[in-house]
Structure formats: structure tokens, C-alpha cells
């Protein structure tokens, strides 16, 4: 029977790892992920979680240990944030190219410099080419549910890719919220035991990580690219099955009042909840606005996204990472790329804010809509503006 629990997003993630009967956790503490690893350590110490917790000496070693553990067929989890995600950067590519079903929860955090331990998406965006399945949870319930689903998706024989579950640093990791925590009985057989098809085993010796010279590297990479783009069906199936069992429904693109919206805000993460409040307020005032939440970031759900913004004349993106020399931030670039050349493609502008823990209130989202409208009405050629930054 599910309990209604008050907990931080971090603890919700830890509960999901416990319920999944994870075999190995290899992690290094870094703010704001620390509560996840601390709670998991307590669970191991008390025997609630029967896992081997490898207290690695850096994040690079955390992901490396995950490679080894996953390669022998053990259900493997890790967690990190910000600088930690950067430190393990090169290893992320291997987890994907070696097709190892590692699950990682990331408490998205700003990147140095200057040093800032608070939330934004710059760490997440820096990993978009690594080949992981990546999606976002906006509150404690979502990150609990999505972490559970992550094991099922990653380990599915039609997938075999690592999965990153993102949550906003502090805004989700450290905010206490109520969520429904199912017990083992209610979980039932939703998450079967892991059955990795190619484990390292002396009874069936294989070689993992052979080197590929120019004559064959491209073929290896194309095979991986095709494979990761083929995971959409399984991701949706797992989420649909979860929805049937637990009546909480997740989709790659989720919409809020977009059916007849003329201007649509596209955004990722917990600040969507502020944006939704703003959308509701503006709708009361008669403005035809709507919100599209990108939940599945990689592989990008191209068709679902195009469908979601079909009615809009204007699309405005809000994102939480800077580009430093690019034409627009990473989310806007993805949106523009998705919509370029489509029939009736909307006008697009974007805003970058919420950096390094800087909050965005519903009022600020209303102001964002107002400024976006001005840009569209005056046909200003503005790729992006910062919002909430003192001029």
C-alpha cells in the first residue's frame, strides 16, 4: 500500500534505488547530490538496501566503477552534480558506446567559474552529445517515478543504454514535498531483475572496448546513433505501463493549455511549475498562451515536439544555461532545429535565466511573456536575452 511521505527529491530518488533492489552504487559526494548518497549509505548500513556501495575517490572513478559493475551484469546506480558530471565527462561516452544500462540521477548544478553550487542546467547541457537517454523530473514524485522507470528502460533488451534522470539542484533535490511511495508489494513485477545479455563471464569470454581504427570507427558510431534514436518506443511503452499501474502519466513532451495557444513557452525542469502559474494567470486575462514542458531531452522527441507547438504563431524558450559564443542556448538551438523548414514554422525568441540558483517567480514569467510579445510585435531580430539579470 503506497504511503504519502514528505521528503526531499533526494530521498525520493534513494527510495527508488532501494525499491529497485540495486546491486551496486558507486558515487562521490558533491553538493547538491549529497543527500542522495548519504541516504543510500544509511540504507546500506541498516541492511534496507542490499547493495555494494563503492566509496570511490572521484566522480571519474564513480562512473568508471559503474562501467565495470554494469559490465558483469549488476544493476548499477550513481549520482552526481555540476563539476562531478564534468569530471566524469569522458567516461559518459563509454557508458553509452559500450551500451551499459547504468542509471544516474543528476542534481543539476551550475558550472564553475565562479564556483556556484546552486541549480541550473549548464552541467546537463554539456553532456548532450554523450549518447545517454536523458529526461527531467520536476518534483519529488516525478524523480521517484522516473528513477524507477530508468532501470526498466536502461536494461530493456531493445535499449541497453545508460539513463540520466535530471532534477534541479536544490529546487528539487532539497525541497521537502509530499509524494506517494509504493511498497514492494505494490511495485509488483513492474521492475524485473536485471538480465544483461553480454556480461563479462569466464564461461563465455568476450572483449569489451576493442579499439576501432579509421576503417571501422564510423560504422561503430553510426550503429550507436541509430540504436539510441530507436529507443523512443520503449521509453514511451515503459512510461505508459507505469501510468497504467500507478496512474501517474509521463510523456516525452507534456503540454499545458497549448491547444489554441498563439504564443507557447518551451521550458525544462521545475521552473515549469512557476511558468504554469503564469500561463494560468495570463489565460485569465484572455491571453492565448500555453506551456510545453520538454520531459525527454535525449533522444529528442522531434515529432511529438512539432505536434505540441503546431498551433503557435510564436514560440519562446526559457532555459537555464548560457551559451558563451553560440547563436542561442542549447534548448533554443534544439527547438529551432526541430522547427526550421516546417510548414507554418513559428517565430522564435529565447530567454536565458535562472543561472546558479537564481529564482524565477510566476511574475517574472509573466514579464517574460510580455517582453517576448514585444519582440514578436516589433519583429526584432533577437536570438536570446537574459532575464532576471541586473543591468
Amino acid at each position, binding site marked *: 500500500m503506497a504511503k504519502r511521505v514528505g521528503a526531499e527529491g533526494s530521498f525520493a530518488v534513494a527510495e527508488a534505488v532501494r525499491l529497485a533492489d540495486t546491486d551496486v552504487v558507486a558515487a562521490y559526494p558533491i553538493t547538491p547530490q549529497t543527500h542522495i548518497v548519504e541516504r543510500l549509505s544509511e540504507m546500506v548500513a541498516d541492511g534496507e538496501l542490499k547493495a555494494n556501495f563503492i566509496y570511490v575517490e572521484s566522480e571519474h572513478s564513480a562512473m568508471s566503477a559503474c562501467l565495470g559493475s554494469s559490465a558483469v551484469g549488476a544493476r548499477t546506480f550513481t549520482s552526481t552534480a555540476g563539476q562531478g558530471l564534468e569530471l566524469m565527462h569522458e567516461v559518459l561516452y563509454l557508458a553509452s*558506446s559500450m*551500451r551499459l544500462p547504468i542509471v544516474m540521477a543528476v542534481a543539476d548544478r551550475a558550472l564553475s567559474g565562479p564556483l556556484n553550487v546552486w541549480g541550473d542546467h549548464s552541467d546537463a547541457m554539456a553532456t548532450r552529445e554523450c549518447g545517454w537517454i536523458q529526461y527531467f523530473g520536476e518534483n519529488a514524485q516525478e524523480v521517484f517515478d522516473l528513477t524507477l522507470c530508468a532501470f526498466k528502460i536502461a536494461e530493456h533488451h531493445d535499449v541497453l543504454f545508460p539513463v540520466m534522470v535530471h532534477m534541479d539542484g536544490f529546487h528539487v533535490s532539497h525541497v521537502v514535498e509530499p509524494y506517494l511511495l509504493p511498497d514492494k508489494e505494490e511495485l509488483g513485477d513492474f521492475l524485473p531483475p536485471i538480465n544483461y545479455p553480454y556480461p563479462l563471464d569466464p564461461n563465455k569470454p568476450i572483449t569489451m572496448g*576493442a579499439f576501432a*581504427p579509421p576503417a*571501422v570507427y*564510423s*560504422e*561503430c558510431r*553510426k*550503429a550507436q546513433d541509430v540504436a539510441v534514436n530507436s529507443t523512443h518506443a520503449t521509453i514511451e511503452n515503459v512510461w505508459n505501463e507505469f501510468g497504467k499501474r500507478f496512474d501517474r502519466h509521463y510523456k516525452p513532451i507534456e503540454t499545458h493549455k497549448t491547444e489554441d495557444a498563439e504564443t507557447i513557452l518551451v521550458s525544462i525542469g521545475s521552473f515549469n511549475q512557476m511558468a504554469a502559474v503564469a500561463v494560468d494567470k495570463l489565460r485569465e486575462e484572455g491571453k492565448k498562451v500555453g506551456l510545453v514542458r520538454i520531459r525527454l531531452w535525449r533522444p529528442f522527441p522531434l515529432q511529438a515536439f512539432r505536434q505540441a507547438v503546431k498551433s503557435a504563431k510564436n514560440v519562446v524558450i526559457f532555459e537555464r544555461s548560457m551559451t558563451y559564443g553560440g547563436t542561442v542556448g542549447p534548448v533554443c538551438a534544439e527547438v529551432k532545429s526541430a522547427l526550421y523548414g516546417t510548414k507554418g514554422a513559428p517565430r522564435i525568441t529565447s530567454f536565458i535565466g535562472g543561472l546558479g540558483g537564481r529564482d524565477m517567480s510566476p511574475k517574472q514569467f509573466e514579464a517574460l511573456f510580455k517582453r517576448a510579445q514585444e519582440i514578436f510585435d516589433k519583429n526584432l531580430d533577437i536570438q536570446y536575452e537574459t532575464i532576471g539579470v541586473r543591468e
Partner: protein
Amino acid sequence: MAKKDFELTWKDIPVGSIVHEPGNASQYQTGDWRSQMPVLDKAKCVKCGICYRFCPEPCIVKDDDGYYVSDLFYCKGCGICAYECPKDAITIVKEEH
């Protein structure tokens, strides 16, 4: 017999670029690397096996009479076997082409 790397299409690539056939690199002929080769004088050989122990490939195995012989398909001609042979039974000879 494994396909050569330049023959593989992207569809041939196994999941994770895993190599499933153990030891299949032994199809590769390293013997054509050499410019000199070992020649065994069986009259001097005492079948001690030291040459076999110190061959880096390893490509020295016993023939039907128990003499340790280099498999020229693999032998790179390093000469360690000749250097180490306690009976000087192996001579390194430049190869004619």
C-alpha cells in the same frame, strides 16, 4: 573467419562493439613482419623448452618428435629463442626474398 574491419557495414557492428569470438585475432599473420628467422639444429636441441618459455608471441610448440619448433606463420624473428638457447641450437638467419 571474422570479416576484416574495412568490410563491416554499420549493421554488422555488434551491440556495444563487443567482440564475441575469443582469440580471433590469431588469424593475423605476423610472420610476414620478419626479416630474419630461427633455424633449429635438432642435433643440438635437448628439448628443454626454454625457447618456448621466452617466446613473446608465443609461437613455439612441440613437433611430433618433441622438438620445440617456431611456427613461421607467427614468428616475428626477434631472436630471443636463439639468444636464450643454452645449447646454441637455434641460429638466426637473414631471410631471402
